[in-house]
């Protein structure tokens, strides 16, 4: 529970939150007490004081009956706010009903109702408001009904969309399975989960409604004399704007400030994505960045091949930190040492949160702000990844480093053909002709076992199956002269038989080019079966590393042993409970 409340508190305590709460507090107080305190003054006519300019006595001046404009603005708060809230209430309440109704109706009726909502949405809502106010006549109630009804289609649509998405969640399915009826589902599950976005939109809508009333009253369609709201005051003031500007600016300020405050409410209540999600999405966004950046890099300078060093990739004391929830840095990887020899296949195995993926990202130089990488040494084939990148180093990384991710849909550009994405890097970096690049792409696709590569080159990523996309990613890595392929859970989203085929292709590509591979997975059997050497990571630390074929014999660390023991395999004793990993990370055999 605490986790649910504290972010809200933090948002309310922020400068924006404090401003909004105090501001709205003042507006509400004015709405309640304004007419009581200034009501008489606002109505008191005094012919002697008519049409005065701004002065200390009358900061906003007086109108043609000698009434104090400031008092009228303050006293008019109630009418303006009530009208805006009333209209928003109508729009939200009926919008919820109309939006939720289709989710429980049979299909034909649902189609008709959503169709009707869509048609109404096509009309600009001010037009609808004018239409309704023509029906109900020019009065305050008429304007409120008009603005309220005009807002219904938008809220109905929003509700329908929210509800449809929530209805598809497993927890709604679970409720249906236990026998909760359609109405029960709406009240118990849909409404509470839709409340957040609804509240935000209602606040924005209230702000819009306030402006609409100002507009309608200004046009003479809203509040009628002797009643007055801010729009009416604006209308009266505007006629004399050259004589007494404050008579128009005063109500204008009230409208703008209240409108802004209502908009700010939505800002304060809008649920911000959790920081973890931000980092994940940030990383996802970063992934292709290296490639794109390297493509743009100058290709004029000749590629200085680093000496065939003894290591492809080396890291000493690698530490990676990300900003935590409280703003401080949280170290996620605590001093990892790793060297990868040319042609070596190294595996990192660990559970989610063990730091295996970000370690690999750092080895590829892909961690960027707000992540912070420190190390005694972090090199890829002689390129210092801790130093600022130069066009030459970018180019080398672009050609010699390949990445294969779990979900290739996010690392392949959906708007470009596979052929274009394969050829771009070499065309830019190596300056080969388009025809030659295409021929190389064709060979690369063929070498990873994609049938009919010529036709496939012209297709888009969505036309490829999951396994095919992973093969295309591997092929993309083969286009340059790869020295290291980083494969981060490349087969986790795939079926086992497809996994086997993709690994076959990866292995063949590795054998063909003698490139090194850094293979990351949570599946220790898979890592051990595919790699030469295995690193076991837990909580940002490499707890053990050993030769893959010695894993069963040489494993010393309790966590490694536990990982081996806790996964059922084809020889597990089915009559006994599985050993589980205890709090300490050591294996605990159930009795």
């Amino acid at each position, binding site marked *: 529970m605490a986790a649910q409340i504290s972010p809200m508190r933090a948002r309310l305590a922020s400068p924006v939150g404090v401003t909004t709460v105090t501001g709205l507090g003042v507006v509400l107080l004015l709405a309640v007490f304004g007419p009581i305190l200034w009501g008489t003054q606002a109505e008191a006519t005094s012919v002697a004081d008519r049409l005065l300019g701004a002065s200390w006595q009358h900061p906003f001046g007086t109108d043609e009956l000698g009434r104090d404009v400031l008092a009228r603005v303050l006293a008019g708060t109630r009418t303006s706010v009530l009208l805006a809230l009333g209209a928003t209430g109508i729009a939200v309440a009926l919008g919820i009903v109309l939006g939720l109704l289709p989710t429980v109706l049979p299909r034909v009726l649902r189609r008709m109702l959503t169709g009707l909502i869509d048609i109404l949405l096509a009309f600009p809502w001010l037009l609808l408001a004018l239409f309704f106010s023509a029906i109900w006549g020019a009065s305050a109630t008429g304007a409120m009904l008009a603005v309220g009804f005009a807002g219904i289609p938008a809220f109905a649509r929003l509700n329908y969309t929210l509800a449809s998405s929530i209805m598809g969640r497993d*927890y709604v399915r679970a409720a249906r399975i*236990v026998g909760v009826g359609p109405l029960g589902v709406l009240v118990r599950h849909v409404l509470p989960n839709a409340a957040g976005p609804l509240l935000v939109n209602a606040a924005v809508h209230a702000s819009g409604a306030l402006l609409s009333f100002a507009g309608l009253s200004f046009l003479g369609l809203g509040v009628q004399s002797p009643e007055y709201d801010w729009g009416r005051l604006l209308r009266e003031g505007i006629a004399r704007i050259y004589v007494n500007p404050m008579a128009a600016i005063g109500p204008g300020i009230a409208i703008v400030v209240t409108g802004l405050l209502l908009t700010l409410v939505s800002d304060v209540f809008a649920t911000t994505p959790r920081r973890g999600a931000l980092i994940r999405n940030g990383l996802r966004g970063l992934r292709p960045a290296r490639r794109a950046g390297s493509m743009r890099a100058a290709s004029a300078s000749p590629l200085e091949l680093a000496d065939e060093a003894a290591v492809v990739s080396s890291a000493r004391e690698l530490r990676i930190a990300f900003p935590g929830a409280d703003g401080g840095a949280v170290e996620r990887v605590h001093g990892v040492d790793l060297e990868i020899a040319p042609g070596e296949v190294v595996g990192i195995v660990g559970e989610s949160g063990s730091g295996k993926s970000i370690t690999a990202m750092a080895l590829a130089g892909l961690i960027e702000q707000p992540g912070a990488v420190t190390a005694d040494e972090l090199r890829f084939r002689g390129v210092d990844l801790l130093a600022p990148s130069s066009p030459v180093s970018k180019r080398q990384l672009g050609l010699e480093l390949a990445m294969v991710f779990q979900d290739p849909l996010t690392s392949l550009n959906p708007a470009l053909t596979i052929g274009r994405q394969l050829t771009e890097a070499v065309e830019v970096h190596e300056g080969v002709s388009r025809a030659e690049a295409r021929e190389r792409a064709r060979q690369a696709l063929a070498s990873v076992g994609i049938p009919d590569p010529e036709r496939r080159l012209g297709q888009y990523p969505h036309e490829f199956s999951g396994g095919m996309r992973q093969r295309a990613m591997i092929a993309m890595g083969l286009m340059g002269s790869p020295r290291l392929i980083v494969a981060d859970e490349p087969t986790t989203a795939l079926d*086992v038989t497809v996994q086997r085929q993709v690994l076959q292709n990866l292995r063949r590509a590795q054998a063909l080019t003698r490139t090194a591979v850094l293979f990351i997975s949570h599946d220790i059997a898979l890592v051990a079966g595919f790699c030469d050497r295995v690193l076991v990571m837990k909580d940002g630390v490499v707890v053990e590393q050993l030769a893959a074929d010695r894993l069963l014999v040489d494993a010393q660390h309790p966590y490694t042993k536990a990982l081996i023991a806790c996964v*059922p395999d084809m020889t597990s004793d089915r009559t006994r409970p599985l050993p589980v990993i205890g709090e300490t990370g050591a294996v605990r055999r159930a009795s």
Partner: protein
Amino acid sequence: MTDFQIENLQVRYGSGSHAHLAVDDVSLRVPEGRTLGLVGESGSGKSSIAAAAVGLVRPSSGAIRLDGVDVSGRGSAARAMRRRIQLVFQDPFSALDPRMPIGASIAEATRATGRRWSRAEKADRVSELLQRVHIDPSRAGELPGAFSGGQRQRITIARALAGEPEVLIADEITSALDVSVQGVILNLLRELQGDLGLTVLFISHNLAVVRYVSHELCVMRHGRVVETGETEAVLASPADPYTAELLRAVPVLGERLDLGATA
């Protein structure tokens, strides 16, 4: 006596030329108090069978019978019988209402029993179920966000049990979890089956996991059953080439992955 069987089941999505036959003439039977493992790759139709059994999709033909009653029908008898089949979902993060305390989620599921529960009875039942899945009952008032993935999955199992089901369908319940948590869930499932005598349909793409929990095995491909039988017997001598291919693709610890000839 629980008798759960599926007869000539067909599930079709879409209509006309876009129709897709997800389940094509599948018949299977889960003996009382036993676990039938349903294994197959994505798109093989195994989850559609689960959805049809609990009434989330309507089969286009065939029957799903519990004690002789076809639960896929529209009548109230079918509906009441259907609630005796409960489902545990794959993703514990989307299977619990993020705005509803876990105790309330479990209490809500007691209505599947068809009996009236007083507030006190519900509270007792919730804490009993939480204890059963090894979650501290005093945390019943907390929201799902306060629990880890493994704990959430145990809570969803408790919710499924709240309906006092005779048949429990577990649809890929460990594939969204870390391996260390997977063992805990599998042990729990075995323990519950032993204690409650549940009849379980266990769906997974992971052959090793299915082998570990299932007495019997049913291999599906493209919406059809390709092989079925006692788990050990099927795995020892697979009769269908697809079963053999699946077996070969499972990585075995301590063995180099058999990737065929590499160039």
